[in-house]
């Protein structure tokens, strides 16, 4: 593995002490018919090797757009990265020349998606698609590449990898297809794996298999894993740290145990309270009133204030609350985090 890494040029400006991946104040806008949609509004987080960071949020919070911005797969236009940094080992990818940037992304950052069927090309066998990666990026011979493809399918625990390598994507079940996509993502030994809702389309028993596999692979390879999801159960099971996103901002960041025990942002708290729980059966579920804001019209001040039960005057005025440091390794963008924490 190390010799493969050696083939990739060392990046100038690499800082050994920097986090593996660091996002600073990222802004992404979409120019739509209804105006400018601010999909990401200053998102910041970091990721260390071997760590699982969950980015938690509901649809439209900007979590997928953030991932696409990191991967450089945003459609531009309509999307524009207007501000911010995406640092890989200290090097800002957004400032690198296009060719170098593409090389880093291809070799060191990989992504898997919710819908494996549309992410795989239906007219080629999965073995061919995997082997193609090795041939293009590693210059392997046809035979070697095929051998590596089988190994990889084996590593993602696809039974009978040797024969299944000739199968086409539609011949795999949903769970197996997701494994194939994971294999494709891992082919070039990335250091960062971004998983965008990887199990949302799967059944729970299959979801358990896939999450287990991802956790294992992360440990084996000491990869950093960014898990983008809306499922608080999955997060509780696998994440080390959580960044909660709302209206394009990270509103709370904390280690997983702390956040479930004592959320520091009203939104996180409300989310946790809205999960159906056994001890509250027969009672009304607590709900977050109203709807998330339209991205073309994000409220002034704290974007959550119209739905927040803690909201007071300062929340309704710009600037938005800063990321208060509310405990060691914890931040929350809420003026009244003390009340929320119950202090």
């Amino acid at each position: 593995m190390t010799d493969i890494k050696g083939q990739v040029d060392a990046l100038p400006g690499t800082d050994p002490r920097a986090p593996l991946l660091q996002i600073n104040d990222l802004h992404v806008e979409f120019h739509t018919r209804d105006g400018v949609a601010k999909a990401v509004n200053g998102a910041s987080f970091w990721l260390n090797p071997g760590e699982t960071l969950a980015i938690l949020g509901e649809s439209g919070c900007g979590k997928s757009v953030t991932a696409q911005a990191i991967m450089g797969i945003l459609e531009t236009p309509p999307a524009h990265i207007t501000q911010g940094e995406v640092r890989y080992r200290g090097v800002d990818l957004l400032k690198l020349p296009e060719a170098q940037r593409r090389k880093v992304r291809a070799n060191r950052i990989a992504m898997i998606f919710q819908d494996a069927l549309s992410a795989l090309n239906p007219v080629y066998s999965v073995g061919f698609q995997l082997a193609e990666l090795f041939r293009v990026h590693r210059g392997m011979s046809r035979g070697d590449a095929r051998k590596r493809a089988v190994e990889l399918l084996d590593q993602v625990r696809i039974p009978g990898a040797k024969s299944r390598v000739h199968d086409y994507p539609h011949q795999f079940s949903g769970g197996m297809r997701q494994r194939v996509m994971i294999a494709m993502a891992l082919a070039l030994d990335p250091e960062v794996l971004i998983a965008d809702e990887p199990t949302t389309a799967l059944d729970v028993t299959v979801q358990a298999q896939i999450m287990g596999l991802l956790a294992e692979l992360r440990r084996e390879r000491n990869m950093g894993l960014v898990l983008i999801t809306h499922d608080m159960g999955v997060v509780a099971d696998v994440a080390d740290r959580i960044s909660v996103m709302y209206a394009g901002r990270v509103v709370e960041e904390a280690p997983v145990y702390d956040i479930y025990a004592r959320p520091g942002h009203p939104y996180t708290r409300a989310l946790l309270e809205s999960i159906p729980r056994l001890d509250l059966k027969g009672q009304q579920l607590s709900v977050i009133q109203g709807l998330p804001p339209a991205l073309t019209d994000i409220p002034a001040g704290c974007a959550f204030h119209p739905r927040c039960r803690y909201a007071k005057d300062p929340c309704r005025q710009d600037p938005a609350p800063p990321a208060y440091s509310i405990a060691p390794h914890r931040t929350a963008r809420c003026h009244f985090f003390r009340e929320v924490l119950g202090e």
Partner: protein
Amino acid sequence: MSDVVLQTRSLVKHFKSRDGAVRAVDGVDLQLRRGETLGVVGESGCGKSTLAKLLVGLEKPTSGAIAVRGQDMVRLKGGDLRRARRNIQMVMQDPYTSLNPRMTVGDIIGEPFEIHSDVVPKGKRRQAVQDLLDTVGLNPDHAGRYPHQFSGGQRQRIGIARALALKPEILVCDEPVSALDVSIQAQVINLLERLQDDFGLSYIFIAHDLSVVRHIADRVAVMYLGKIVEQGHDVAIYDQPTHPYTQALISAVPVPDPRLRGRRDQIVLEGDVPSPADPPSGCRFRTRCWKSQHVCGEQEPVLQIRERSPHPSACHFAEVRRVR
């Protein structure tokens, strides 16, 4: 409380396909009482959606009977069938495809009145539509808007309003919240519960999300490959599951509490659900079951109360195992 509003007997639906018959629903018996919620859980391909379609008459059963208030829906014809159908309506899964994009919300909710013109006289329909919108928590003034102008949660409310228009006693909810965000899910679930109290509705609540079903259901039926494998009160199913599949299913649900990480009794099943076109002989779960023995392939286990299962369970080796 004991009066049965809906009952099925040996309900079977086979679809013809190139590889023979797909046994989507293969002998389902269930009962729904007035004001009760029966949760139906299972993974994709277990037949729960086909069951929903059978119940509301979107599919014709291959055999078996569906009785709504004692009337056999399969035998009824013409006007009688239309009238009987009013009593059982459905809330669909996808709020984005279940509403006609070219009709206004008022027209969508008012359509049941046009089809069953004797329910509400013409002059009062507009008012009735506005009342329905109000009932489901939407602004009655928005009747002139189109579905795409609403959010997913609001659209699901529109779907619920349409289902309520004919004042049914039974609502079949097919994954009504699975397309929605968590915070919106809670709003819709609360609405469904309030409507149940206000109108004395009975629900068949079909979902793959076990925690949602646990919250809303009084009784739960677990389906696997077209059959019910375990059935009982919610507490019985969740706290004393006796079928291995139920146990695996419950253990696979991630619990939103990181403190339980690594301490839970996690059963990770091998492989995928077999094809319903060619289900395993005997017990259909045996190919993925850790308890499987010779008898499981020979003899199909019946859904019944067993020595070690205080509620009906379709496993030869049914035994209570608390999974958490």
